[in-house]
Every structure is written in structure tokens, then in C-alpha cells.
């Protein structure tokens, strides 16, 4: 999957979980609705959609679309 395809799928996924459209710069700092519950929902949804599993210690740090995308790209590499 190309980076742009990954980004687009993440934009759609985050938008669905957060309940409103997001852009590529979305993060817990910019999205007030990205709370602790939504964060776990996002993480598990990403894992299911992209068939990956994040380590426990990674999960809190994946706090932006960009970081999630970078982590997915590293996994695919």
C-alpha cells in the first residue's frame, strides 16, 4: 500500500472513530475528542485494518495520524 493510500485510510478511520472529519495533521493535541477511550478504539481499529499488533509500550505514543502512519510504514518495510 502506498503512503498516500495508508494516509487516506487512516484519515477515514480516525474520522469514523472521532465522529468528525480529520486531516493528516490530526493528533491528540489538536483533536479534543481524541480522549483515552477513543485512543484505544483507534489503536485496535488500526491493528485490525492493517493486520498489525502494536506493543503495549508503543500504544500511548501513537498519538497522531502521522506517528501511526510512520509506524505502519516501518512495519511494512
Amino acid at each position, binding site marked *: 500500500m502506498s503512503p498516500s493510500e495508508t494516509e487516506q485510510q487512516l484519515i477515514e478511520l480516525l474520522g469514523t472513530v472521532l465522529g468528525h472529519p480529520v486531516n493528516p495533521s490530526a493528533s491528540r493535541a489538536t483533536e*479534543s*475528542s481524541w*480522549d*483515552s*477511550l*477513543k485512543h*484505544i478504539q483507534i489503536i485496535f481499529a488500526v491493528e485490525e485494518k492493517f493486520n498489525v499488533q502494536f*506493543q503495549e509500550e508503543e500504544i500511548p505514543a501513537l498519538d497522531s495520524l502521522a506517528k501511526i502512519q510512520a509506524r505502519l510504514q516501518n512495519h511494512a518495510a
Partner: protein
Amino acid sequence: MRHDLHLNGCAYRLRPVGVEDAELIIELRGGEGQRARFLHPISPDPALQREWITRYLARENDYYWVVERLDGKRSEGLIGIYDLKPERQAAEWGRWILRPDSLAAAESALLVYRAAFENLQLNSLYCLTIADNLPVVSFHDSCGLPRVEVLKQHLTLGEQKFDAVKHLCTLENWPVLRSRLEPQAQLIARRLQRQK
């Protein structure tokens, strides 16, 4: 108050705060940044914290817990139920702080509601969140709780007054909240188990 109310979840537990937790409380509540911004500042002096805990232990209708992992790896945070009004079977919960990398949010909240409705037999439990603390306000929204009131200039930190958002859980909507929090608590527990 001095109590013996322990609650075990899937991956985390609540155990009563004691005087021996003074340094832990300072560690968790101290620091800077966003998390500390919405907390009442505390002294870094363990002796003063032990005095506070001693006074807390002598108070009635006030429950303070340490949030711990069931596997004993570390303490995750703090949480409490206080200002309990026996005549109304109502109380407030808060004093909630977790380590930045903790995954205990869902289950620690679930356990405190469980304490309220299943152990203390309360009819309602509310929380007051500084309106500017958007992620925590959103957390309570995500639990399915209604915002019943916005209290203008209600909470004071330092010299600044803040509006407070009040979320209320009653016996009636406790099942809804439980249905939101339990699945996530179970998912997290399974993940932590898999990675042992």
C-alpha cells in the same frame, strides 16, 4: 477515610491509599505540562503529604485508591470517591491521575463506578472536570454520560478560576456506562496478557 475496599478488574485494581504512599502521590501528581496544569499543586515534601494522608484517613465518606496493575509491575495512578452524602446516597469522584503511558483509563474509571454502585450502594456519582481540560471532558462524554451542568467559575487552581463541567452517572445510566467501559477494559487486559 481508612477503609478496606479493594476492587479487582481484568488488568488493574484499586487498593486503598495509605501513609506509605506519600512519595508515590508526589511522583504521580507532581511534574509539569498538560497533566499537572489541571491539578491542585501539592508540596514535594513527603512529610507534608504524609500529614495530608493522615488527615484523609481520619475523614469519613472519602475513599482514595492507588490504581495498580494486577500483575504487580507498577502503580498506574490515583483515583477517589469523596464528598459522599449518605442522606442522598450521592458522591463525587475525581483525584484521578494516571501515568502518561498508562492504559488504565477505562478500567480505573469502571472500577470506581463499580465501587460506587455495587459496593457503596450509591444512587448517583458525579464528576466535575475543568472545562478547559478537553480530553477528560471528552472521556466522560465518550462514556455516555450526560453533561448535566456547567458551573461557571466554580473551580480554583492557584489564583485562576475555571468553569467546571458536571457529568452525572445514576443507577439508571450505570448499565450504559458499564457497557462502554467493560469491553475496552477486557480488550486491554487480553493485550497485556498476550504480551507477558
